[in-house]
């Protein structure tokens, strides 16, 4: 019996969780179950990409996995191990007051979610794919509603479940109409998918990926879920939607490629700017990260669109840069976003606050979490030498390259402007996320008394760091050097990996020079016999500065909010206490409203209500009418049977 034979049944290891006593021990069992699968998935993923002939043999560790699936399996493996390890440290504090059954169900779902994602990327038949897809939705639903005693969590989870099932039925429809449900290994691989089927796939997968304007579940569900779950969902689960879109894009019939590529490209560009502009005005740390995920999905879609345009134009270079950049971004983003969500989870665990206006000064109190969050935020800000830079570089290079080749000039310039704008807004978003949360002075007692989280959580957070640091060299090797196995575009004239080595050298030089400057400072101080002293921050001659006078998360983006106008950044002020004769303490809270998502949901629910209202014609409330309805139905059945239809 080989590993490949037992792999599909490893999902059942979730049952082991039920046998384990104690929250921590259950977590360890779940983490071991996930780690076993992760090792297999990572090894199988990398070998499938690098040595396809070995991996396709009978001894394959993950049967059904191809090179494209391998990329996603690698991302799932890294994020899965990190998140399950994080849960071991996080859950004992978070699950206080929960019954054993709830905790068991939570960890079992974590294992199931992990294996169902691997199932999605290995499935080769349509119904197998849909089975794993549905299992992924259900397990993540159970994970999101862990804190269902809170009303907003329940709302978020149920909303998520409903939207995912709308998406599921779209996929079901797409699979059954496209005729690929015949099964076998030909699932998705044949060329000749028609445009309506592709659009159905795009909407179905887009709901999972959070494609604008179908993103309404994303900024609600991520803050509601426990942090390791948000990390897993935002890091890799939404990428499963991307996986489907890439598959569908590769199977699309060639004559439709250009138009659909333009659509995906425009969607991606709009989504990147929209997502990050929304992220920049958030005050809730996890919501901010959720919106930033929308931006990153937008960048990935922009890449996919570029790749489709390249295929439509028969330009290997553009296809290579587009799909290559998209897949690199999948890998890089899965690493740093998992890290950021885990960092946010540590902040929540230490302070019980997600609102950045109540945080501050955490770098002094939680130094390791602070450094890890900073590194991940730097990767998100496209700092050269980290994984975030590689993918953006390939995308930019593809866009500039198509301009210099004289193809797609206007489209590419639009993409460049969108990416540049998104890049500038990312800097704004993450300087705010980091600066307000970790720097300055604490804005509440909880932040003042915060303590560093346990070693297990820190270790879990540090795991994806390996991907961020090694990624700039490893990921281009995996994705770009094997581009023809992944998406059938071959272009080796400019090895990106060589450029990345140069970039790493430059960054090494920058780091060395920084060290030299710090050394110079120390030497200068010693030579002139002065020592660095500590004084309170200069208040510009104001003598009674106060911690409440610091810039807050709300004030940091005040000008951007004004620019976006009140529609873009609407604030809802809620008075929670009502007017009374003898008023007690009033509480007041603000919340951000996403008018785009609200507009979409409101439109759909309005239409739904209108049409169901017409159906209410039959609901008269009179028994004799209902008897008549039954009689008519029986008559219809009789007529149809007589006609031989039934």
């Amino acid at each position: 019996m080989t590993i490949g034979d037992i792999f599909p049944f490893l999902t059942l290891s979730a049952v082991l969780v039920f046998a384990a006593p104690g929250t921590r021990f259950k977590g360890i069992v779940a983490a071991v179950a996930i780690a076993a699968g992760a090792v297999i998935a990572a090894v199988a993923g990398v070998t499938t990409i690098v040595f396809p002939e070995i991996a396709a043999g009978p001894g394959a560790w993950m049967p059904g996995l191809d090179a494209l699936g391998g990329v996603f399996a690698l991302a799932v493996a890294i994020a899965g191990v990190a998140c399950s390890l994080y849960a071991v440290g996080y859950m004992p504090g978070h699950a206080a007051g929960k019954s054993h059954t709830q905790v068991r169900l939570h960890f079992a779902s974590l294992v199931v979610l992990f294996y169902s994602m691997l199932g999605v990327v290995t499935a080769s038949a349509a119904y197998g794919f849909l089975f794993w897809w549905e299992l992924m939705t259900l397990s993540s639903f159970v994970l999101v509603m862990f804190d269902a005693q809170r009303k907003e969590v329940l709302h978020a989870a149920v909303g998520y479940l409903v939207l995912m099932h709308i998406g599921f039925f779209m996929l079901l429809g797409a699979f059954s109409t496209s005729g690929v449900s015949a099964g076998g290994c030909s699932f998705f691989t044949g060329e000749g998918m028609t445009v309506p089927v592709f659009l159905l796939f795009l909407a179905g997968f887009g709901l999972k990926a959070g494609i604008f304007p179908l993103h309404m579940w994303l900024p609600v569900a991520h803050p509601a879920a426990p942090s390791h779950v948000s990390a897993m969902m935002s890091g890799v689960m939404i990428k499963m939607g991307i996986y489907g879109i890439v598959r569908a894009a590769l199977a699309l019939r060639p004559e439709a490629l250009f138009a659909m590529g333009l659509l995906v490209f425009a969607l991606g560009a709009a989504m990147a700017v929209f997502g990050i502009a929304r992220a920049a005005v958030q005050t809730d740390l996890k919501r901010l990260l959720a919106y930033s995920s929308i931006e990153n999905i937008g960048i990935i879609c922009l890449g996919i669109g570029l790749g489709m345009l390249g295929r439509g134009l028969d330009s290997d270079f553009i296809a290579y840069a587009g799909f290559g950049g998209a897949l690199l971004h999948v890998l890089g983003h899965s690493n740093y976003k998992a890290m950021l969500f885990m960092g946010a989870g540590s902040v929540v665990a230490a302070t019980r606050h997600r609102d950045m206006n109540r945080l501050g000064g955490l770098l002094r109190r939680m130094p390791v979490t602070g450094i890890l969050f900073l590194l991940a935020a730097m990767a998100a800000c496209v700092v050269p030498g980290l994984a975030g830079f590689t993918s953006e570089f390939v995308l930019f290079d593809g866009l500039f390259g198509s301009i210099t080749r004289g193809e797609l000039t206007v489209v590419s310039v639009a993409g460049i402007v969108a990416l540049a704008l998104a890049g500038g807004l990312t800097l704004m978003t993450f300087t705010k996320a980091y600066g307000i949360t970790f720097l300055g002075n604490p804005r509440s007692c909880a932040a003042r008394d915060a303590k560093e989280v346990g070693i297990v959580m820190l270790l879990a957070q540090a795991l994806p760091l390996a991907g961020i640091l090694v990624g700039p060299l490893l990921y281009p090797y995996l994705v770009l050097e094997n581009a023809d196995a992944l998406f059938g575009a071959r272009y080796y004239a400019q090895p990106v990996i060589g450029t990345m080595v140069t970039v790493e050298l430059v960054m090494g030089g920058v780091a060395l020079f920084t060290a030299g400057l710090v050394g110079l400072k120390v030497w200068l101080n010693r030579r002139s016999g002065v020592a660095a002293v500590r004084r309170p921050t200069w208040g510009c001659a104001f003598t009674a500065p106060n911690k409440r006078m610091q810039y807050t998360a709300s004030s940091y983006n005040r000008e951007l909010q004004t620019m976006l106008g009140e529609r873009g950044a609407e604030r809802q002020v809620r008075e929670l206490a009502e007017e009374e004769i003898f008023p007690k303490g009033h509480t007041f809270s603000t919340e951000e409203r996403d008018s785009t998502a609200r507009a979409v949901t409101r439109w759909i629910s309005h239409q739904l209500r209108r049409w169901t209202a017409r159906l209410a014609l039959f609901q008269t409330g009179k028994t004799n009418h209902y008897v008549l309805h039954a009689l008519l139905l029986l008559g219809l059945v009789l007529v149809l049977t007589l006609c031989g239809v039934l």
Partner: protein
Amino acid sequence: MIPLILILVSALFVKGVINKTRARLAGRTGCRFFQPLLTVGVLLGKGEIYSTSSTWLTRVAPAVCLAATLGAALLLPLGIFPAVIGFDGDFILFAYLLALSKLALVLTALESGSSFQGMGSAREVLFSMLVEPCFFLLVGTLAMVTGCGSFSAIFAKFDNMSVNLLMLSLILAYAFLNVALAENGRLPVDDTRTHLELTMVHEAMVLDLSGADLAFVQVAGWLKLSMWGMLVVNMLIPARTAGWLLVAWFLVAMAAYGVVIGLIESLMARNRMTKNATYLVTVSAIGLLGFAVAYVLLTSGL
């Protein structure tokens, strides 16, 4: 190597040129030409004062700011003199190295926990976000016109002596100048002279820095000023100039760049803070104009 040396040399005098121009137009003698250098010399000899809310970040970040700026300077060519490091897409690294230097400075500012620094950094990231598309548009236009993908190749090939491209080079130089003004915190976006006003951007961010840290940030500021000047100059110096003539052209053009900035600072008022966003979007529109002009020129068969 030559462009890097020229940037370092010009970084030493551009600030002096600006100061002198401003002083002369105001009817003053002004401070000494190399006063900025002397100030930095004094700063290097002083010890640092760190805020009680600061950590290791404030001690390292000013050095990162300077190092990243210098790293970006390695990528700039001058005419046919190639840059120290050049590859396809090197301007992406250039833009993001400058972003790293800005990130370091913004985080240092936020660490002081003062509302002035917070205000300054909020404005800085907003304004740099608004000019970022302009830079990429301008480089994209140049890449389209020359068909090359790296700074060195673009500027070696860009031929502004032909009639059509002369017009384009003027538009691009004007747009680069505006980006330079915004990125360096000069008028009309920001005023380097106002200390302790609620209207400042860049200067508010460095309020709590002192000693060698402040010196590093100031040196990084000079470098940035002459690096953006280098881009403007690259647009303006006649193509196919080589040797000492090119160096001479560079020095003259760089001095002119300083004089122009000095003129702008003397003759213009600073924008109202709320108008800055509109102003910077207009700068991006100039970049778009440059692109449109180039696109029309190319498609109509140059």
